[in-house]
């Protein structure tokens, strides 16, 4: 069972306190979007072996959504950060680069 630190309340929360929300940094497509863009937004998800960005909610805690950067293979956690951002902050990217040189995730590296 994973432990992730909630960046809002600071609690080192374990998985039973958390609700997994799937891939982070999705860009919403609404009316006017092409079929391809909308379909990709609704259904297409990254499934990497390695670095991944995920949404989590501290549901049995402070109730806040946050993002986590972690390795799906080793379960290493590179960091957690606010959900109110469209891309991973520099500190998180640097933390990943230090451990996984040359990593890439969608448009981020």
């Amino acid at each position, binding site marked *: *069972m994973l432990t992730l630190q909630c960046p809002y309340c600071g609690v080192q929360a374990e998985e039973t306190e958390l609700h997994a929300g799937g891939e982070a940094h999705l860009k919403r497509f609404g009316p006017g979007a092409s079929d391809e863009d909308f379909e990709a937004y609704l259904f297409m998800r990254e499934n990497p072996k390695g670095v991944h960005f995920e949404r989590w909610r501290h549901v049995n805690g402070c109730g806040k959504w946050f993002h986590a950067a972690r390795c799906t293979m080793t379960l290493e956690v590179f960091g957690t950060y606010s959900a109110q951002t469209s891309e991973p902050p520099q500190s998180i990217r640097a933390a990943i680069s230090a451990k996984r040189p040359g990593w890439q995730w969608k448009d981020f590296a």
Partner: protein
Amino acid sequence: MSTRLAHTGRLLTKARQIAFTFNGKHLTGFEGDTLASALLANDQMLVGRSFKYHRPRGIIASGAEEPNALVGLGTGASFEPNQRATTTALFDGLAAASQNHWPSLDFDVGAINNRLARFFPAGFYYKTFMAPRAAWKHLFEPIVRHSAGLGKAPRDRDADTYEHFYAFTDVLVIGGGVAGLQAALAAGRAGAQVLLLEQTPHYGGRAPVDGGKINDLPVDKFVEQIVAELETMPNVTLRLRCMGAGVYDHGYVLGYEQLSDHTPGIPGPRHRLWKIRAKQVITATGAIERPLSFAGNDVPGVMLAASVRDYAVNYGVSVGDRTVVVTNNDDAYRTAITLKTLGLEVPVILDARTKGGGDLMVQARALGVRVETGKGIAKVLGTKRVTGVAICTQAGEGAVLEEIACDAVAMSGGWSPVVHLWSHCGGKLIWDAAQAMFRPDVDKAPTGASGEAFVLAAGTANGALSLGAVLSDADAAGKAAATATGHKPKSDSAPQGETPAEALIEPVWMMPQGAGVKLRMKSWLDFQNDVKVSDVQLAAQEGYESVEHTKRYTTLGMATDQGKLSNINGLATLARALNADIPAVGTTTFRPPYTPISMGAIAGEARGEIFQPLRRSPMHAWHEENGAYWEPVGHWRRPYCYPRSGETHADAVAREVNQTRASLGLLDASTLGKIIVKGPDAGRFLDMLYTNMMSTLAVGKCRYGLMCSENGFLSDDGVVARIDDDTWLCHTTTGGADRIHAHMEEWLQTEWWDWQVYTANVTEQYAQIAVVGPNGRKLLEKLGGMDVSRETLPFMTWADGALAGIGCRIYRISFSGELSYEIAVPASQGRALWDKLLAAGQEFGITPYGTEALHVMRAEKGFIMIGDETDGTVIPQDLGLNWAISKKKSDYLGKRAQERSHMADPNRWKLVGLETVDGSVLPDGAYAVAEGVNDNGQKATQGRVTSTYHSPTLGKGIAMGLVLHGPDRMGEVLDFPRIDGSVAQARIVDPVFFDKDGEKQNV
């Protein structure tokens, strides 16, 4: 004969005799005995029958690896099947029964399978039960079901209690043998918080039995000293009878503590499940001895060599007067030396190695024991008990050189480190060819949240076999764990262990190496599931090359012991059959728990009423006192109806509907979700959430709204009220409150985080009571305090005020089609208002009604119900709710999805009303059939029933359903086949069955 020795038994208190029964037979043992040692002391070698062939089976091991000695323990509410006799402490009054035999252990009809064994090879079931199809149901399945399963399921509710316990520690040491103790000491001396778990009732593991010296002390004395020191350390916690059951992500470990299995009846929980978070885990779990694969290695009396030694030294039990030792390594010589020293006979030691062993072989010879090198067992003589062995050369095919009479065989095929806990969370193994074992690959340890290793293996579990190596390895592990948790270990050196020098093991995977098929068919790998060398070879021959496939095809290692004895021998046999290296074949996956843990421990305190606490409305007690028949709705219980004496539920529902429509009904609507949405951007936010426009709703007004998920499907509905300029109150369905609140928060926090909106789920803060029926207004006027007239409080408005002195908010909304007021009061006032309404309503024949009457009345009005008309694949357009979808808004959740081609398809099934031709009630969920067949050759369908009731108001069956082109086919009659094969015919009609113009609610 197995018997009790006069002078040994280091774990026994011989002054305390203990009485117990086995299959009803009264026997005695001593305090400190396990059930297995006590059975052996009473010459009860035969303890069960094997699963498939019903072969007689005896005790083979002395610990958690035992595959055969499984018994049913206890009776009635404390009965438990499949308990290992070798790990069951003896207590006064213990009642054990053997399993898997009929009619008796000694005479078993199923043993005919053994005679037919050559017709039951691996894959027998797959091959045999393929055809004919009907034979499976009527012939094979009943037979298989009768013989399937090991042990009996308990019938009574478990009388014991269980608990969960949470612990956090720097260093968790699993295993209290000399390695675990030394690791704990090294970490503890460095100042780390240490928790040590030992699964047996004793510290020291098997080192005291194996002998040798530590720091010039006998091992027993060393163990006493180190435990004494650990017990004085405030930062060290020690637990006996507590197994490390599983290692999980990020240092999470489950411990399984057996608190009162050895002292039943004492107060308190029986088992405790430890939920541990450890920064570092040391697995000092020891090793398990492997059997040798020779013909008849399952005959009662054939045991693991170290276990024979355990029984002699720890429990003072001789498993036979004459014990033949057969081995491929030096350790088994210890058994011969022990037995000989105790005055028992060892006719011969058969050492498969041509050069034999080291110092221990010299010692054994000096004691006068005959040692034959390069020899093995061709086959064991005897059926229910060993009577002798036939000797052959290991290099040959099994030609018998000599027969030797004996009544026990002690076998050793080498040692396998217990790598289960290391492997649970991803630790990898390497094959150590010199020691013929898989051991932890220290470079590929399980990693934690930091990306660093968090598990260390120590001692024998790490592949260190000699006492000296065990101690220095464990000391290093303890110090490394302390360092990793931020402590500074002492620079002291590890204790010195002294043991005789040993010669290397020679792997023996079959004895003799050239054994023919007749011998291989009697050479057991998995004793519990009856898998033999020949079965694994057959699997390989039939193409099951992956070890995971072979496991499932042959059931090797799939029994309750999870292959603790059989896995390595099995995969080595497979590797030979495939002409592959053992590491190339690999192991099957090790999964927790290490040994089975009780279901009670998993459940812990979560039983009965607290398994899932109920949510109760403020009027719950009244419902209960007035005979409510409950319906579960989410975690709530709501009254389904209030049957009076002599009434069926259908009668009660009809009475409640009729009285509400004729005069006055009362509904506890408290469970409906109530969410406050407030802030400068609240209107804009609700416009995104609902399909219709909420920002334009006037203060004081109510509006029905629909919510969709982003992929367009209808997910919830309810009435929204505008409270003030920046505050809205959203009603949700009973089951939807928490889900919809979470949905709102998700969008607010992760997409529109710059919008200023605050949400609060106030569902439980308010009681809500619906006053429904033509006399509703009269009732409220009688209570007094608010103007509830048509002019002041028209339909779809709300007002604050006080009724009968209770502050409240009244919403004039209706889910029944009647004149209806929903009155919200603080939860604490709910029961008071309910009672006042009931008292004042007597003159109108006020009738509380339940959820079924609510359903019937909404269906009569053609109102949809989330979960009936919707199932996650239905969009509002399917339900004719286009009027509730804004055409002005550029966006709302689900809008883009509803434009996708499949969603806009004119052939989607649409909502209609259905009326049976004969007035009967349509079956729920029934399908309307069409001409032709679908792709699967089934009859084509053109619609289905979503809601169906008997309408007391109309005196006939009414239903709603989704039908292909339904709204364009009014008056057509459809066929709905019933389960019994008959067909119900129903006409497509308007879904509003009653009061189409809304004259009753608009008064």
